[in-house]
């Protein structure tokens, strides 16, 4: 069975072996295929569908907070351990204090970045009417610029360049990864760079309808 319905959420794996989640509405159960696709943005940015859904902003914001808090916890644990005075109890306490003070801060700044980025990205998808890597790159640059707005125009330009370059690297890595992943499965049908929404899930929808 290619996909499962549980609690209004469908999960399956697409050709590239990447996780695709779609929140199906009640309409999907009545056979009307009107699904909101979204995908894990850390996998393949060019296999996104209808990612202008406003809930994506909330999702990305929370995901970024969690990511920052956990990652900050790991790094600050090491840092607090190393910077504390000698003695195991001091080191443990230093590590704990560093986690408690710094990890939520880092999570918060990640959440601000992620939320603003996602908001601009969704806005660009809506305004431009298409989804390509330029959306992410532009929104990365704009996020960097907006968050540095209080430090003056020079800082804004620097921060925007940094955000744009970073997002371009991430997008490039995603594209390379997609190409690599799809070249690993030569038996399946191959898609071009930008798969149209219809062909890709078609086999699963074919199967899906049979189960209705």
């Amino acid at each position, binding site marked *: *069975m*290619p*996909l*499962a319905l*549980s609690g209004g959420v469908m*999960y*399956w*794996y*697409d*050709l590239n*072996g990447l*996780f695709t989640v779609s929140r199906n509405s009640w309409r999907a159960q009545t056979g009307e295929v009107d699904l909101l696709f979204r995908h*894990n943005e*850390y*996998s393949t940015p060019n296999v996104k569908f209808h990612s202008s859904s406003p809930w994506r902003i909330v999702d990305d914001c929370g*995901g970024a907070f*969690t*990511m*920052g808090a*956990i*990652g900050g916890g*790991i*790094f600050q644990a090491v840092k607090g351990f190393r910077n504390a005075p000698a003695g195991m109890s001091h080191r443990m306490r230093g590590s704990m204090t560093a986690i408690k003070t710094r990890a939520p801060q880092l999570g918060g700044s990640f959440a601000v970045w992620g939320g603003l980025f996602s908001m601009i990205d969704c806005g660009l998808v809506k305004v431009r009417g298409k989804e390509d890597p330029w959306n992410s790159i532009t929104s990365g640059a704009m996020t960097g610029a907006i968050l540095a707005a209080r430090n003056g125009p020079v800082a804004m330009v620097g921060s925007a360049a*940094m955000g744009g*370059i*970073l997002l371009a*690297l*991430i997008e490039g*890595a*995603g594209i390379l*990864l997609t190409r690599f992943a799809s070249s690993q*499965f030569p038996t*399946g049908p191959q898609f071009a760079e930008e798969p149209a929404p219809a062909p890709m*899930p078609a*086999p*699963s929808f074919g*199967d899906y309808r049979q189960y209705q």
Partner: protein
Amino acid sequence: MPVAVGPYGQTQPSCFDRVKMGFMMGFAVGMAAGAMFGTFSCLRIGMRGRELMGGVGKTMMQSGGTFGTFMAIGMGIRC
């Protein structure tokens, strides 16, 4: 519950596989970003020649590790 079989009869990559993939991707991105930004910042503080190479390499490894860890966590929390 996620289902284990994809539409093409492909098996699901495990959570660990995805975390590993995220780490590798983050490491690659971080290395590239570290090469760029590290070169700028090392040149700005006046490193040249062999010292510059060492400084850039260190920045690349550091930012690769940081990015890789964060990307791995990002994949892990969406499992």
